[in-house]
């Protein structure tokens, strides 16, 4: 049996360490061959466990893991044609870069000359030729990552599994290595599965973003869909960039409904694809932070804006190309407007100012 494709299907995958709590709880997912997939979630959500089960370092308690059309549960990593890049890389400290990369060929019994030649070719590919004789401890974080990548890639895997590959790097290098990962993925033409807890990393890299919470998938889809159209409050808050408000449905019109929040002014929200919203239901809605416009009381609202929530500015953070304005619009949740820098400084607000937070009516979205 030789696995030739890197498409993965998880069917009802569960993992329990103690027989009581499921660390991974019935995960179903299909990842296309050659896709870049990011699992994202807080620590302990089961994302690393899923990765390790695909790699063959853990066995699922229930369910099937299918790679390239074959159920691989119980097979060792080599037969799955997966390779794993470990968190903090796990490079062998006593071997040089060349020996580290040649390791997989060494244990396959290739002759020394043969495997060192293959390793050198791979070293060239990741641009480490001048460091070939160094030990891992003598390399920078970025160089170590390239060694780890090369060491995994030399086995010619169909699937490369990356466990928080960028977490050991500092901010600038992280952005740089992020691009390098994407470039390598295109060059190798194989499936990458990348576990992270950084939203920016996930949406910058992935074709498929999988948001997890407590062993379950909350939402899986293209980066833009997950970021711009989060399914529920959890995903919206985790991916960021959204204001989430909750309230009671006061009235349902043809294409929209009115949401009422305590004594506050009702908010008009388009129904969109959401069905089954009835008067009296408590639901969450989301408004993107960069869709929120701030106007001074008494000024006219921008065209298309219906709702205008009076708020007080509680804090202002300059972020470069935009300004983050924090408001006390909703009692318990934070409400933030990302105002473009030029707009903000044309008429700057101060902390304590009263403003109206408004948005074009159809930008509000009901959440599940």
């Amino acid at each position: 049996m030789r696995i030739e494709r890197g498409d993965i299907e998880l069917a009802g995958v569960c993992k329990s360490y103690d027989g009581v709590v499921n660390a991974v709880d019935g995960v179903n997912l299909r990842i296309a061959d050659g896709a870049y997939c990011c699992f994202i979630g807080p620590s302990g959500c089961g994302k690393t466990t899923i990765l390790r089960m695909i790699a063959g370092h853990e066995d699922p308690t229930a369910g099937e893991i299918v790679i390239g059309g074959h159920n691989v549960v119980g097979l060792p990593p080599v037969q799955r044609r997966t390779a794993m890049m470990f968190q903090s890389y796990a490079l062998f400290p006593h071997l040089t870069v060349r020996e580290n990369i040649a390791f997989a060929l060494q244990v396959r019994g290739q002759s020394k000359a043969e495997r060192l030649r293959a390793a050198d070719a791979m070293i060239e590919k990741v641009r480490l030729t001048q460091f070939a004789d160094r030990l891992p401890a003598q390399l920078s974080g970025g160089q170590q990552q390239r060694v780890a990548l090369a060491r995994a890639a030399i086995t010619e895997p169909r699937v490369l599994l990356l466990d928080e590959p960028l977490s050991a790097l500092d901010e600038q290098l992280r952005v740089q290595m992020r691009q390098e990962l994407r470039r390598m993925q295109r060059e190798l033409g194989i499936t990458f599965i990348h576990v992270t807890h950084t939203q920016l990393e996930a949406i910058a890299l992935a074709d498929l973003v999988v948001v997890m919470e407590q062993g379950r998938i909350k939402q899986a889809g293209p980066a833009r869909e997950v970021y711009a159209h989060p399914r529920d409050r959890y995903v919206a808050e985790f991916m960021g960039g959204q204001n989430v408000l909750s309230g009671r449905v006061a009235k349902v019109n043809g294409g929209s409904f009115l949401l009422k929040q305590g004594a506050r002014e009702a908010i008009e929200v388009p129904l969109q694809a959401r069905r089954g919203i009835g008067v009296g239901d408590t639901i969450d809605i989301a408004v993107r932070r960069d869709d929120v416009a701030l106007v001074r009381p008494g000024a006219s609202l921008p065209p298309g804006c219906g709702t205008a929530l009076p708020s007080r500015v509680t804090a202002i953070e300059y972020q470069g190309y935009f300004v983050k304005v924090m408001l006390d619009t909703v009692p318990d949740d934070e409400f933030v407007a990302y105002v473009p820098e030029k707009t903000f400084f044309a008429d700057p607000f101060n902390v304590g100012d009263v403003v109206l937070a408004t948005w074009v009516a159809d930008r509000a979205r009901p959440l599940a």
Partner: protein
Amino acid sequence: MSAVVVDNPEQGISARKAIAPSRGKRPWTFYVLASLFTAYVLALYGPMFCIYILSFQDVRGGLVFPMKGRSLHWFIDLFTQVRTGDVKGSFDRSIKLAVIVTIITVVISFLAGLGFRRRFKGDSIVFYMMIGSLVAPGLVLGLGTGLLFQALGLSPAWYSSALGAQLSWTLPFGVLVMFAVMSRFNNAWDEAARDLGASRWQAIRLVMIPVLAPGLVAVALFGFTLSYDEFARTLQTAGSLNTLPLEIWSMTLNVTSPSLYALGTVTTIVSFVVIGVSLGSIVLIQKKRGAQKIKG
């Protein structure tokens, strides 16, 4: 606002002071602690040096100061005179025993280190049972071993009962050292090896043993030195043929010449050679890794 601006430079200077103390004057505590340490070193090595110095007397030499002449007479005496006891034979036995103990200690400690990487049911009971024999008084344990052999109808010997009694001493130490060594072993190395297609055995041979080599040498050193000068547990278990510490002890009872001191000097030299070889090999391992640093 202005107050803050004025304050800042001062804060900067005091902070710098705190980080890099001046090298000029040492606090009085330094001198107190330094003299304490000197006294400690004297107390530690003084008695030993008395022995070494007195072993180099000439034929008139006695067991106490003052020093009478200078020669190697008592060293020659040690290896030629029969009346001083079976020094050569006991030395041979001690070395052989120490080597066997070392090998068993290293192998079992390594395996225990592997086993204890993961928690298992009853692991703390197993651990405390292992450590328990450290607490047991050595003489009593030796006596018990001797009695047990007698009860089983076996005659005690240095290679059977003494070996077992010594292992009850070296194994817990070896395992404890191994735990310390293993705590610095990243299990991801083992997993990475497996991920790259290494078999269980290849992962141990190509990754674990080389990475842990300095620690294994340390365990070996422990095993060797603990066995080489073990007395209490060996006393009742060595049978009719003595190990070196037992021989020295019996000599203190009936030999009244500086050849006893000469023997002390010789055994110390052997110990230092063993320690030197062990530490040297650790340094060599690290130097080999360091040399690649310079080359790269």
